[in-house]
Structure formats: structure tokens, C-alpha cells
């Protein structure tokens, strides 16, 4: 066990865990931030996506000891009132079915649009392809990403 100070959603949080613990479980088990989901644990599904210094990463393979003081943003910290353009677009298109994968989808989409505010359809497809939605909401996800891109540019 070792003590780590993490910068999560703009707050400094201290925890005492095994250095190999993935951020996913630090968030869920130790910090009561359960919006980040477990789906596969091997970086295949994207349910656990968070932002590390603004880049979308798989928190299930990101050990707590590797993070240092880099900024982590989770779905809970994406916006103060749930009104990030991507969240708004998700509600407008009524994307979710079971909803389980959607936090990861939104985190992937928001980091992507930050870097590429004017994406083509193909770029959207590529960017979102690492996130599985077992309920099959892919068509709406693409639509929502496009809407969010347009509001960003408006």
C-alpha cells in the first residue's frame, strides 16, 4: 500500500492503495465516483473511459501509480450541471437504452471533439469505435456526436 494524491475533477484527493490499482477501482471503490463503469477490465470496451489531461484513456488499465499529478476528469466532473454540449446532445437524441455504456461513450466523444471540433462522419466512426454499446445505440451515438460538434462550432 502507498499513499497517492490525485487531481480528480479539480479536487485533490488522497488515497492509500496498492500502487498497481487501476484508476477505475480507485474511483469506484475508494472515491465514491461510480459513473465510470467496469465492462471488461482489459481496455476493450471503453466503459471505463476518463480524461487524463484532456485525453480519453481507459481507466481499467491505468494504474494509480502512473498518474502523478496529471488531471483526471470523470463523467461526474465533465460539467457542473450536466450541460456539456455532448451531454445535451445525448439527451436531445435520446441515446441511452440501458445506459450502462453511455458515460464512457460521452467521455470518449467529448475528448475527441475537443481535439477535432469539425470531424467528418468517418472520423467520428473511428473515434467512437473503441466503445462497445451492447444495446446497439450506435446510430444515435453518431448522430449525437455530430450535433455536439455543430453546437460547439455555432
Amino acid at each position, binding site marked *: *500500500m502507498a499513499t497517492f494524491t490525485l487531481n480528480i475533477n479539480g479536487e485533490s484527493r488522497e488515497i492509500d*492503495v*496498492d500502487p*498497481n*490499482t*487501476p484508476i477505475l*477501482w480507485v474511483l*469506484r*471503490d*475508494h472515491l*465514491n*465516483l*461510480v*459513473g*465510470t*463503469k*467496469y*465492462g*471488461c*477490465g*482489459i481496455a*476493450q*470496451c471503453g*466503459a471505463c473511459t476518463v480524461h487524463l489531461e484532456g485525453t480519453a484513456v481507459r481507466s481499467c488499465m491505468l494504474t494509480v501509480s502512473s498518474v502523478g499529478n496529471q488531471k483526471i476528469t*470523470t*463523467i*461526474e466532473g*465533465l460539467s457542473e450541471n*450536466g450541460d456539456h454540449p455532448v*451531454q445535451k446532445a*445525448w*439527451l436531445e437524441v*435520446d441515446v*441511452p*437504452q*440501458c*445506459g*450502462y*455504456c*453511455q*458515460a464512457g461513450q*460521452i467521455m470518449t466523444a467529448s475528448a475527441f471533439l475537443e481535439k477535432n471540433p469539425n470531424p467528418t462522419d468517418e472520423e467520428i*466512426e*473511428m473515434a*467512437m*469505435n*473503441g*466503445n*462497445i*454499446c*451492447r*444495446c*446497439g*445505440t*450506435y*446510430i*444515435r*451515438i*453518431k448522430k449525437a456526436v455530430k450535433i455536439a460538434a455543430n453546437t460547439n462550432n455555432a
Partner: protein
Amino acid sequence: MTLVKTSIGRRSFIRTTGLAGGGLVLGFSWLASCKGKTEAQVMQMPKEWFDINGFLKVGENGLVTIMSPNPEIGQNIKTAMPMIVAEELDIDWNNVLVEQAPLNTAIFTRQLAGGSQSIRQGWEGLRMAGATARHMLKTAAAEAWQVPIDEITTSPGMLHHEASGKQAGYGDMASAASQLDIPEEVELKDNDTFSIVGTDRKNVDGPKIVTGKPLFGLDVYEEGMLTAMIIHPPAFGMTFTSMDADAAKAMPGIKDVFLVDVYPEGVEKQWSDGGGIPQLVAIVGESTWQCIQAKKAVKVQWEKSGTLEDSDYHEAALTEMLDTPVEAPARADGDVAAAFKKAAKVIERTYSAPFLAHNTMEPMNFYAHVTPDMAVLNGPIQTPEFLEKTVAARLDMPLEKIDVQMTRMGGGFGRRLYGHFGVEAAVISQKMNAPIKLVYTREDDMTQGTYRPAYKVRYKAGLDEAGNLIAWHVKGVGTNDDLIFENRFPAGAVDNYLAEKHNLTSNVTTGAWRAPRSNFIAGAEQSFMDEVAEASGKDPIDFRLELFDRAMTNPVGDPEKNDYDPARYAGVLKLAREKSGWDGGTNKNRGVSAYYCHNSYVAQVLDLTMDGNKPMVDKVWCAVDCGIVINPISAKNQVEGGIVDGIGHATYSQLTFVDGVPQQKNYDTYQLIRGAEAPKEVETFFVDNGIDPTGLGEPSLPPISGALANAMYKATGRRYYQQPYILQKPIVG
């Protein structure tokens, strides 16, 4: 305007109740359906139809709360159900809240979420409850204002008496209304006056989902809670012998490692315990990561206790059964043998599909806190009432002391009908004398399943000189399942018809998987139909329509037996033809398919472009007849999801076995469809016929694998007989 009775004889579908103080609280039967029933029919109605299992509360603040006995697994019933009540009650639907009713068997009887039945069963009960409450509020206002009730009108949430100008909010009259007798008869609105039902309403849980609020079973964290994980036998056909857990027990945070007798002798398994393994190793610790680590350090010895089955064995055994005569046919009309003899053309084809895992995005999990006085369980489960019973039997506690709560579910697809993980959680908590949350890793989840069975089906069709279908023979088999619906299409449309089925016993556990049996047989049948239509020289849609016409005008056998309505079937097919601008089958990349299941009819036309051996679907036109559509935006979401799911599993997914060991354990080897492989566009069209609503969670899935295979044939010249299509070995000759 329809009048419905709220009671029959001395049995009532509705009663006022003292469940909560203040306001008007009505208990009602979710299953209530007495419209147009005769006295004799009513006598035969199942008792459960009268059980009070839903609650409707009009609060003094005017807010309406519905306590729903049905769990949410992503079909969005949590939005559709309040829409129905709001419609009849005449209230702004934003003022209706839905709460998940706790399972308390003294008051509720819970129905299960499965088979796309939630809305179908709830439709009339919910309408009646809303209409009864409205009627009672009107009566209370009439009494308060001393005017006749038929002079009272309502506008959303308000009562009015036009002549005197008096008005009041529902909340103001709610307590007075609660003192009144239940009216014997209430009026339901005419369908064409609906202002909420049939309009787009967004998912009521949407804001919570997009902000990551705790909603799911895995999100349950309680004070003092420990995490539990399991190790199950590595293969079907193996059981536990011994273990060395010393190293694991010494690891940080680990509280205990022990053998769990989940189902010891004497504890009777119900169907809902399917997939449950009698003995497992449990690891209990402070955190999930610590348990995952310790799990790897436990050394368990297993022994062979049954056959260790391979996929090659399944393949051979299923084929062998297709070649084995059946004892008696499931249905036989005319004389197929004679008809094949005189047929101008005979076509015979065999189709197969592998086992599939459910792969709900949220793996199996359950919270349990068992003390000598009470067992509290909470988690994602489609069959809570069954879980209560098994837990009571297993813990040897009375049913009243078992309390099962439900969370939102991160996907169901049938997997959470089988609640063995809840039983496991209860037993582990009891042993630890502490609250625990049992968590399956993805690997645990994928390798201990209630899988979609492996299937094989052989079709044989005979055509006469003019290309008319004169004989149809279907013979199917599945592992622990017999696959064939003998009274579905084309039964009743062909003079000589024979349906036969076998069941191959396997120790690989199987169960319901989204649209059971239909999920495979629809695609196989519709692929075959396409090939037969081609051989007949007819347009594939015309060919099907001729058969529906036959079933309508001059059905073969007893038409009552046929499990479909040919007119509604033909209706969706014509709608899909029109909307897609069907071109008589000349388009190089286009396929069609139609199927009926779960009381709904679906026809699809699909356009694609091949990218190597990968089908890239450009567009699907989907026509659906599911009666009245409550919430189109969400209904379309279900349809799209079913199509993506159907294309994905038919094209990419499979679970295979070597020596009883599942060969795919996580998403690196088990391929699921991804966004780039999903159709670019799905356009959904609903038949507007005013028929009471039927299911939508499942019906769009089954036919799509047929439309896909038929379009792939057009594009490649190859027929697709084996799922997953992408792995099909080229057929030689």
C-alpha cells in the same frame, strides 16, 4: 369512448389503500384486462389478474407517483408507463414520477421483465388506474361544489365547473377523493383523442445517465460492505475437489476464501436458478482490485464429473439428430413425401448457429446483507420474486424475511432472468456475517452463462411447374431446446407441410436470449424463403405475399392453430416495400425479410456494400406492427437496437468450446459489433392500426439476419448458411 368495468363479481381490479398518508392512493392490477370479456371467460381468468401489484398516488401537491412492479432493463418502460397513466388521468406528464416498487410479497406481485410483455400486460391496467383516479377526483369536486358530475371537466391537472367558474387542482381534491367508493365502471379515452400516448417523450432517466449518477447494481455501495468474487469450474462437466488458498488469504485486504455450497442437496432449483453452479469458491475482501488479485492466487483442483463437450461434438451431434427420425411430427398437413416426389424442383438447405453469451455490459452482480432476522438483497434482476423463493429455501428463512430490491440493469437480454448470482451473494453474506457485493469479472460472466443454444435447422421445399410452393419440410434441433415453432408461417399457407423437432441434451447451460429461438430461426427461414422464391422465378416479396394470401383466403388446416395473422404480416411487408422503393429484387445489394414474434410483426429491407467479407449496411427500412406505439422516439430506439444486435451477432459473434471450456472469455476474443459496423441509417415505420400495444424489446432482431444474408447473396453471389457469417467457410460445390 370505451367503458371498462373495474371489478367483476366480487373481485376488483382496483382498490383504495392506506399505503401512504394524504392524497389519493389507488392500488391496481397491472394485468387488469376485462374489456369485452363474457361472464364465462371471466370465471376462467387467472387469479393473478386481480392481484393488486401497482400503485398510483395523486399527492396533495398535485404530483402523481406510480409505483411500478416492473424492473427497467433498458426498454424504457419507466417512461412509457407514466405516459399511459398521464393520458387517462389528464395530467401534464412531467408531473408524473415512476418509482420502482420494492418487492414486498404481502402487497405486490411482481411480474418479470421478459418476452417484451411489460407494456402489453400493463396497457389496460394502467389506463384503468388513470381513468379511475380521474373519475374519483371529478366525483370529489362534484360533491364539494354540489353540482352533477357530468358537468365537471378536466384539463391537465385541473378540475373545472364551467357554469359556476369553479376550479381546483387535482391535489386539492385528492384527499376527499380517497374517501370515495371505487366507481364500478370508468370511461377510457378514445384513441384518437390521445395527446401524450403516441408522442415523443425522452427517457426520464436520461439526465441521470449522462451525468453518471449511481443507478446500477454495481453502483451499490453500503456502509461496511465487502466485495466478493467467485471462481467457478473452468469447464462445463467439471466440479471442485480441493484448493490451496493460503497465499490468497494472506494478501492485503482479503478477509476469507472458502468453498460455497450454493445449491446443496435438498435445495430445489427453480427454472430461474438455471446456470447456477452448485459449488463455487468465494473470495471476500475489502475492495474489488484486491479480490481480483487474490482470485489469481487461489489454486483450485477440479475433477471431471461429466462429459467435456467440444464445438466439434456439438456440430456433429446436431447434424446427427437432423438425420434421426422423430417419434412424432410437431405438425403435419397433407403429404409432404408425395408432394416432393411430384415436385418440379426440390431445394434442401441446412443452417446453423453457435452458442452466444448474453454479454450485458454490466456483468452479473448482487448486493446481499443476511442477518439472522432479515436477508436484504439488492441488484439487477428480472425475476425478483423467484429469487426470493430460492433464497428463502436456501437460507431456511421464511419468505417474509427476504427482501429483494431492484436496481436499474445494465442490459438484460434474458440473462438476468436467471438469478443464481443473487443466491450466491446471499450465501456468501451469511457466511461472512457481513454485507457484501458479489461482482463477476467479465471473464466470470462470459464463461458461466445461460447461453443462447447452438442450433441447426434443415429446410426442404418443393415447387410445382408454375413455381408454386407445394411442400415445406422443416426439421430443427438445438442444445437443450427444440427450436421449431410449428404453427408459425408458412404453416397454414402450404398444402403439404411437415414440422419436426429434436432436442440435444448438453451440459453447457442455456436459457432465454433476446427473442428465444426466433433469434436464429427467423433468419434461417427467411434466407431459405429467399432461395426458394428465386428458384420459383418470382419477386421475393410477391412470393411471400402469395403465401400470406393463401393463409388468409384458404388456410390449410385449422386456421385457429396458426400462430400469426397473415393480414398483419402482409401489411408490414407491403409497407417496407413501399418505403424502400423496392425494385422487384433487381438491386444488386438489397435483401428483404419478415417475421412475427412476441405478438409483433416486422418486415425489413436492407441495403449494403461489401467491404471484403464484411457487410457494411447502408440502410435498413423497417416496418413494424406492434399496435399502438406509446412513445415513438423510444420505440424507434428499441427497433434500431434490435437491428444492430441482430446484425452483430449473426455476423461476428460466437462462443466455442474445447473440452467443456469456453474459448472466448472477454471482448478481445468474443467479437461484438462496433459502431463502424452498425448500419449507417435505420428508418422505422409503424403501422397505425389502433390495436392494443404489443412488445418491442425483441421483434426487430430476429428477421434482420435474414435480410442481411439475402443482401449479401445479392452482392457476392454466395448464400450464407452458417452464423457467424463472417467466419463461414466457403461452400464448395
